[in-house]
């Protein structure tokens, strides 16, 4: 089938995800997890509508734009807000993106709600749960549950900006169904979950 991407004709197979043929930044999408459509960084304009490239399949005659002024503003702003509220020091690729978008988080002033003050949780011998660095993409929750493992040792606590992963009954990980497979650590994009072997 044929569609137009940024004005150029393209020929692709039916069912192809727009994310496979375009290159917007993305954060929550992971090929091994079912999280998608959450971070909204990969939004593209399809026939004038904003749709996530990670959830939208190519269709005959579609007109897709990935680099409009509005999309650049949206991505820049989202990245700035993440940097404003979250410790991205272990997420070099996000910091690079922020730089590439000429992001200036400080133009928004300060925000009283912040994830930065959260204390790291050391409740197991293998990895750290450092939610000051968590953007709540839910990849870890999905990998632990429906996505990969099906052990359901992780869930979410709270709502809004301060929502973050936790364990059932807020128990230390060794007291949950966790099997320490490490999948959650593997899929974490911001270093909120990281092996203790990396800590000096």
């Amino acid at each position, binding site marked *: 089938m044929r569609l137009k991407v940024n004005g150029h004709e393209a020929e692709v197979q039916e069912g192809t995800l727009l994310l496979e043929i375009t290159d917007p930044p993305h954060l*929550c999408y992971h090929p091994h997890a079912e999280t998608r459509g959450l971070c909204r960084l990969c939004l593209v304009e399809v026939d004038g509508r904003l749709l996530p490239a990670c959830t939208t399949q190519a269709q005959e005659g579609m007109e897709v734009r990935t680099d409009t002024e509005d999309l650049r503003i949206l991505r820049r702003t989202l990245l700035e807000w993440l940097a404003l509220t979250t410790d991205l020091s272990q997420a070099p690729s996000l910091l690079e993106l922020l730089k590439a978008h000429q992001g200036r988080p400080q133009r928004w*002033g*300060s925000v009283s709600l912040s994830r930065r003050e959260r204390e790291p949780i050391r409740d197991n011998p293998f990895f750290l749960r450092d939610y000051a660095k968590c953007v709540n993409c839910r990849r870890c929750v999905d990998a632990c549950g429906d996505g990969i493992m099906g052990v359901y040792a992780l*869930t979410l606590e*709270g709502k*809004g*900006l301060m*929502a973050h992963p*936790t364990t059932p009954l807020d128990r230390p990980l060794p007291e949950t169904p966790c099997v320490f497979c490490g999948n959650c650590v593997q899929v974490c994009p911001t270093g909120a979950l990281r092996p203790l072997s990396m800590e000096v």
Partner: protein
Amino acid sequence: MEKPSLLPLLDARLPLSEEKVAEATRLAGVPLAQAWGVVRYYPRYRGLPQGRLLVDDPVARARGFARLLEEADGTHPPLGLEALSPIHVRVEGEKRYVEWEGRLIPFKEFRLPFALGHGNRLLPPEPILELAQYEALGGLVFLRRALKNLLAPEAILRAVEEAGLLGRGGAAFPAHIKMRAVARGEPPRYLVVNADESEPGNFKDRFLLEHHPFLVLEGTLLAALAIGASRVFLYVRDELEAAMLGLEKAIAELQEAGLLPVPTEVFRSGGLYICGEETALLESMEGKRAEPRLKPPFPVEKGLWGRPTLVQNVETLANLPLILREGPGTWREKEPKLFSITGDVARPGLYELPLGTSLEDALRKAEGEPEALKAVLLGGAAGVFTRDFAFPLRYKGRLPLGAGAIVAFGKEVDLWEVLLGLAEFFREESCGKCFPCPLGTAVQVEMVRRRERNRDLVHHLGQALKGSLCGLGQSAYWAYQSLLEVEGAA
């Protein structure tokens, strides 16, 4: 497949302990992780704020909010009591009361004063809480016809289509398109009545449920027959305890009279603004955190438990008996819409007005004077400030009607304080599933607090929020942007 829903299992065990959560989890057949996510999400499982609480609605914000707050232990989200605002509620454990006329009235006994209603087609001349009373006033004719196979499902669908009925919950989507899509789906099919009215400034559904339950139920059952639904759920806002009891009594009366063709039950909502978003609503019914789903698939294809589901607003359904009685043509000539008009008007209340009525005429009905107003908040928190008093109140116009809330603000009102209330409301009610909404609504509160008027910054805030997953985030900046426009025009 359908499992016992977690929320009613938890509700039956309040106040919760770890053992009780574990028991509800076993009965629901879900992982403890899912149940814990639910317990740590909904306010009544986390623990309701206690004491004397000021209802933090746009009217209270215009009445010296800081001073009012000094006499309260905290705040409660808007409750459809704007016509009586400022008003307090009291929460003691699981028991909740409205402070009204010097008395504490339990939620399960408190109904909006009937005198607040002004209308004749959708609103009854007196509260109608008995079946015989409803029938004496001309009700049930079409439900009886449908039950005797004298009114075919297709005839109901055609009447709704010819009337051009648009959804009254705020999105104004053509009702017949959703109904036909569900009717085409494979059974079992469900009907869910969205009675989770939570948009600040609105109390139309609350009034209908509390004073006219049989009209709502007749419309609901006609829709259920039209789409071939095998079950009906009324998803009622958690705080509307009197409405829930009234509906349960009315359902029992209909059943006894042999007038309940489809099993119908009341479902207590999760108690959050986001629960009114149709897919979040379905998630909560399935025992999960009320978070919006990615669409497509839409509920008409995959709704409750993955089945084709019609989710329809209370007022939309209440119009069905009317459309059939008057005939779609006549109904359409003077399309009735309920407007909740409050704030700086002499007679705040619920007004049934024909669509197309000008904002000025609507305000004058409530004995408000446009010349004495600084602005009007139209549509609620997901609405706009405006001074366009000539604006004809109809759907798909320049301004959003939302569900029909009109809050008037006099010249002395500090609109930034009202806006701050809306901004804080959005921040508190954001579910946190996507990124733009929780981040943007938190940033917005700070911007409004410092009265940020930088056009670029406000524009960028809007551009990012527009990318949110659902309508909550997508509309969260409208009021802010519109206030700057109103200021610029003044």
